[in-house]
């Protein structure tokens, strides 16, 4: 434990930006101050992480700010702590966040709500950093809810459109469902780890007591926490909000719904890995949920036409990969993938944003095409992102994804591995499909739109380039075991996440698996090339042949409709009935009845109030005489 007095600055600087934006609402000031404060936060984070890296392994920085709650035996402090896990997350959040802030300056330049946008964005940064730096689960929960709030505000940023507001509401409500599970999990955790010293949700306390939990209890806690994580990280069955969340401005999609917030669930499970390890059943469920989500989302992504929707389902799919990693016990690997995913997915989203920006708001890939020449920087960076997510050797996604596959295999889950590899292939296919549809072929845009297509300004392209560099180089911190310096990030994270338990170093080596995955990904990419560059008529023919399957995928398995029929509508009907009978009948009846009673009473008694003072005086005299009479008679 190393005392530190600068950690509080990391969340405080964005908070200051938020207050500044709210208080002044000055465009010129905010568009400079907001990115600058986030950048400053990044610098502070770098300094803090450098301090941590310089210290011996397993140490952590602690910055106690004040005692927040002290009631009975329970105590929660506002204390920030920075260990390896938090360090990685903080750097992702502040670094990518800074780049996206800079990007936003260009992207939102013409929006009237710019100060409000940066206020929300800075508030999000504050909440996310609170979540990541929290020393206890309660403070983490504050950040957890804070990012949820900001997500809601930013999805509905253009609230004039009902659809956007509805999307924000949907995200909020679905997240609340997850939060119920999360809160129950927290309560159960606090209750079951309560010791002689009373209850505590400090991570140190939880880590110390988790081993003592029974497998059943730990599994129950883990499952409840998983519900929360599924909500936040868009896993089956609570993933439905994320595609709709694309209604928000594209930088928001990049920052919140790809790079940072949605990984909060991953972070939380990694942070509490001891609890999950104590309940292996929960861990197995995590793996199943993860791999199922990965495949499920990838299949939907195959047929989407909205550029952002494709990326959204891709994000869900990648989050499924991370969940899989968690489920097989490779916590550090999951975080590694969080990092690389943050780089290339932010890059892809920002690239998509650049395209949308250049296309005057057009999001449908069927009306794009041929943008390669018109938007060279966007194209090349988008290509890098696509290669990275598809797993082209040497790029960021290659290393992290293959590490997940390898750990899945090594942990003894060949079925999961198979599904994951298929998913990776599908990923390569739909990403290249997106790339080809957008940048290759003949322009399909409307003439007046096509005339205005232009490369984006420097504030947007510079972050793209930087993220592209990171997408290329970011994976080299986690090389496979035995390659050069090996999994450096894994070793760095080990004190926080523990070492992966490899069931058997089987006959098949990592290199073999890597080769298989890479070949399959290349095949997927080639198929995409065939379908969308070489033979553009093929997809239509296939869709015609497998009409049912295509409809299923295009309809996103009708999950939204299913939920609507099974949950939303019965719930609305129940609410309606309750409103009609309980609220209007019983409660309003009681209230109105009380009022009516008072009115009737008042009508009766006001007859006494003649308004003539002398009548009152007469009553007064009678009363006085009566009192005196009482004294006399006594």
């Amino acid at each position: 434990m190393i005392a530190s007095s600068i950690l509080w600055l990391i969340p405080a600087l964005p908070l200051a930006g938020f207050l500044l934006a709210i208080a002044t609402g000055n465009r010129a000031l905010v568009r400079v101050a907001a990115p600058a404060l986030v950048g400053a936060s990044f610098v502070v984070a770098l300094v803090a992480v450098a301090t941590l890296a310089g210290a011996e392994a397993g140490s952590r920085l602690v910055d106690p700010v004040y005692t927040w709650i002290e009631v009975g035996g329970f105590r929660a402090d506002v204390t920030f702590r920075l260990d390896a896990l938090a360090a990685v997350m903080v750097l992702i959040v502040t670094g990518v966040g800074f780049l996206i802030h800079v990007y936003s300056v260009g992207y939102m330049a013409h929006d009237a709500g710019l100060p409000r946008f940066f206020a929300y964005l800075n508030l999000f940064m504050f909440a996310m950093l609170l979540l990541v730096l929290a020393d206890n689960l309660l403070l983490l929960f504050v950040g957890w809810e804070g990012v949820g709030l900001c997500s809601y505000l930013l999805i509905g940023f253009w609230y004039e459109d009902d659809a956007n507001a509805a999307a924000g509401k949907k995200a909020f409500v679905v997240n609340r469902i997850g939060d119920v599970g999360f809160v129950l999990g927290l309560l159960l955790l606090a209750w079951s780890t309560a010791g002689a010293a009373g209850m505590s949700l400090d991570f140190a306390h939880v880590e110390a007591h988790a081993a003592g939990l029974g497998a059943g209890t730990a599994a129950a806690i883990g499952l409840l926490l998983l519900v929360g994580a599924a909500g936040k990280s868009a896993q089956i069955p609570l993933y439905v909000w994320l595609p709709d969340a694309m209604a928000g401005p594209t930088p928001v999609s990049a920052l919140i719904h790809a790079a940072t917030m949605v990984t909060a669930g991953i972070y939380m499970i990694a942070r509490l890995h001891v609890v999950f390890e104590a309940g292996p059943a929960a861990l197995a469920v995590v793996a199943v949920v993860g791999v199922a989500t990965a495949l499920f989302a990838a299949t939907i992504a195959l047929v989407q036409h909205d550029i952002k929707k494709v990326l959204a389902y891709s994000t869900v799919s990648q989050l499924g990969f991370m969940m899989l990693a968690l489920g097989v016990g490779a916590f550090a690997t999951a975080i590694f993938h969080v990092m690389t995913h943050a780089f290339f997915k932010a890059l892809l989203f920002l690239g998509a944003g650049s395209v949308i920006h250049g296309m005057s708001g057009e999001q449908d890939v069927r009306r794009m095409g041929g943008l390669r020449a018109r938007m060279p920087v966007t194209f090349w960076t988008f290509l890098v992102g696509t290669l990275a997510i598809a797993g082209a050797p040497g790029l960021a996604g290659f290393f992290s994804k293959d590490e997940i596959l390898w750990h899945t295999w090594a942990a003894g889950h060949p079925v999961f591995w198979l599904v994951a590899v298929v998913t990776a292939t599908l990923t390569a296919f739909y990403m290249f499909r997106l790339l080809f549809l957008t940048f290759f072929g003949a322009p399909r845009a409307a003439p007046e739109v096509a005339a205005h297509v232009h490369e984006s300004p420097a504030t947007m392209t510079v972050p793209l380039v930087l993220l592209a560099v990171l997408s290329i180089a970011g994976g080299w911190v986690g090389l496979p075991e035995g390659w050069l310096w090996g999994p450096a990030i894994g070793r760095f994270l080990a004190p926080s996440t523990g070492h992966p338990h490899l069931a058997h170093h089987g006959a098949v080596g990592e290199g073999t698996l890597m080769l298989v995955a890479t070949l399959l990904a290349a095949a997927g990419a080639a198929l995409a090339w065939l379908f969308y560059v070489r033979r553009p008529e093929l997809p239509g023919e296939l869709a015609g042949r497998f009409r049912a399957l295509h409809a299923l995928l295009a309809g996103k398995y009708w999950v939204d409709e299913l939920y609507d029929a099974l949950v939303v509508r019965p719930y609305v009907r129940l609410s309606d009935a309750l409103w009609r009978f309980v609220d209007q009948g019983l409660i309003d009846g009681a209230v109105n009845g009380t009022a009516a009673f008072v009115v009737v009473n008042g009508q009766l008694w006001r007859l006494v109030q003649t308004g003539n003072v002398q009548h009152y005086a007469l009553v007064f005299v009678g009363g006085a005489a009566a009192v005196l009479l009482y004294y006399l008679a006594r």
Partner: protein
Amino acid sequence: MIPISWYLTLSAVLFAIGVVGVVVRRNVIVILMAIELMLNGVNLTFVALARQLGSVDGQVVVFFVMAVAAAEAAVGLAIVIAFFRNRESVNADDLALLRW
């Protein structure tokens, strides 16, 4: 020597007459006068009991009662004048403006 209780009886009767005056009269000014009558009934009690105790404290209280009565009369009559100016009446029946 007249017993003090006679004075007290007299003051009680005066007070009661004043009370009836407050209740039955319709003219606001007369009501104010009836209040003065009540005050004087009480004043008599104070003076009589001061004599009974051989102390002037009761007379001092009467002094204060007079000061307050003077203030009351001044303000009360000013209100009556203001009211008369608005409604051309000093009848208590017209003073029930705050009635429902």
